């Protein structure tokens, strides 16, 4: 709505939209997808230069440029293909570099393709505006900001500063994610350890009725793994409404949030859940099977 309204504004000479979002390539690696309508405008504003290969053609939708940092880490070369959405491959036509370090871990692609890759149709993150009267930009910005409380207009000279803020937000979100993960792991482990310890009496009874140590350990660890898997799946599914709510109420975070949870993290999620479940159940169960059965049965 805003984009179309701006295009029709009589003070606006040209209007170029950009979409930025994070895309997970695998369980371990994620990249910034930078989708733009007009590559030259964006390259001029951000100081992007192609250091190897060439720019992608404006009318091609299956070509991309990759940032120098990303190319180095992922060993991408010009001519390689990269899968950015299921079963859709893009040819790398060049490698770019810019002084804005965050952008060097990105993939540059046409705006429409980026919207498709990020599953954010009819959504843009930034709009570059060219005004007929350059002297009126201060007035334009002031009016725009007062009329659109949830959006922010600034001069193109402040773009680098905006990207630096963006980079800081990304680092902050990553740190919060890591911290949340650590807290979740600690809580899960503590819960499992407590739950298994409380079942010492049960383990004693099973030993008394003839269950061997290996059988008890196998059953308890297996049970803990199944419970961890259920928790992981519930956690994954609850990410759908959480992301939807965050997108609705924290519009400034829109660029950093995926449209929906990435399915390719599921194997990693199950692996982490398996490890937590197995480790937390293994040690209390081993302990309970090692103490005297008569003591285990009396355990409170």
């Amino acid at each position: 709505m805003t984009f179309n309204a701006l295009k029709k504004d009589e003070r606006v000479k040209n209007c170029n939209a950009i979409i930025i979002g994070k895309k997970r390539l695998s369980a371990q690696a994620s990249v910034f997808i930078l989708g733009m309508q007009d590559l030259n405008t964006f390259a001029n504003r951000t100081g992007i230069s192609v250091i190897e290969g060439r720019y992608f053609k404006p009318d091609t939708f299956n070509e991309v440029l990759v940032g120098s940092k990303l190319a180095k880490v992922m060993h991408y070369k010009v001519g390689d293909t990269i899968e950015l959405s299921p079963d859709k491959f893009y040819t790398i036509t060049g490698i770019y570099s810019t002084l804005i370090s965050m952008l060097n871990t990105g993939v540059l692609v046409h705006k429409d393709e980026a919207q498709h890759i990020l599953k954010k149709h009819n959504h843009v993150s930034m709009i570059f505006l060219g005004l007929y009267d350059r002297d009126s930009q201060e007035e334009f910005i002031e009016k725009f900001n007062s009329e659109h409380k949830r959006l922010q207009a600034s001069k193109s000279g402040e773009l680098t500063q905006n990207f630096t803020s963006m980079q800081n937000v990304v680092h902050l979100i990553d740190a919060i994610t890591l911290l949340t993960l650590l807290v979740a792991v600690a809580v899960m482990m503590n819960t499992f350890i407590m739950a298994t310890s409380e079942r010492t009496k049960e383990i004693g009874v099973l030993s008394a009725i003839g269950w061997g140590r290996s059988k008890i350990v196998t059953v308890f660890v297996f049970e803990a793994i199944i419970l961890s898997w259920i928790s992981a799946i519930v956690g994954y599914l609850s990410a759908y409404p959480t992301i939807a709510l965050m997108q609705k109420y924290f519009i400034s975070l829109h660029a950093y949030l995926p449209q929906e949870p990435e399915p390719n993290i599921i194997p990693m999620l199950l692996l982490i859940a398996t490890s937590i479940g197995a480790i937390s159940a293994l040690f209390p169960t081993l302990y309970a099977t090692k103490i005297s059965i008569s003591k285990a049965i009396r355990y409170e």
Partner: protein
Amino acid sequence: MSKNTPLIAIQHVSKQYDNGLIKALSDVDFEIQKGFMYALEGPSGCGKSTLLNIIGTLDTATSGSVLYEGKVQNQLTNLHDFRRDFIGFIFQFHHLIPTLTLRENIESAMLFNKSYSKVQRKEKVNKLLKEFALSHRENSYVTHLSGGERQRGAIARAFANEPRLILADEPTGNVDSNNAKIILQMMQKYIKETNATILIATHDPIVSSYADYNIIMQDGKIISQKSSR
């Protein structure tokens, strides 16, 4: 093994805790024959439960030994399998597993017993549920059972593998007199059908009256043994 070999021979068993500060059992020596009900009597703290735990291989003696049909404990190849096949435990507090149904609790004792196929296991559980008048409660969880039902379920679990020795620690301690009588009659029936032996730690006079032999304990020692046959 000769024909006269006792089922269990307890030979000079002593048990001490805290480096000898607490003497739970002192030189306990007696034999348990096949096909009888024994009542191990005495006041609380006299060592009845400790003795049952040692006989049941749940605990070890400080000195002395327990012979099972002439074999000492370290001659038994697999203690878990031995406990499963040879001994059935009945505790004062039923100790059924709360996360399992009554049927699953009874079946849990037979789960790794290769003598039973899955179908045989099911049939056996059905038979036990019927005998203990618990068929209507088979899918109930422990928390939904009455005290008497819980204890009858625990006894059904102890009988599941048809062990030759049942060790019962105050099995009627938490049930009313009606349920106590049912439990004791079921025990007598079990002995008659399987020629097994039941050793009950108790201070309930009703239990004593059902026993073939009464062993009286005091301060960790056996002070008298009498037959009421």
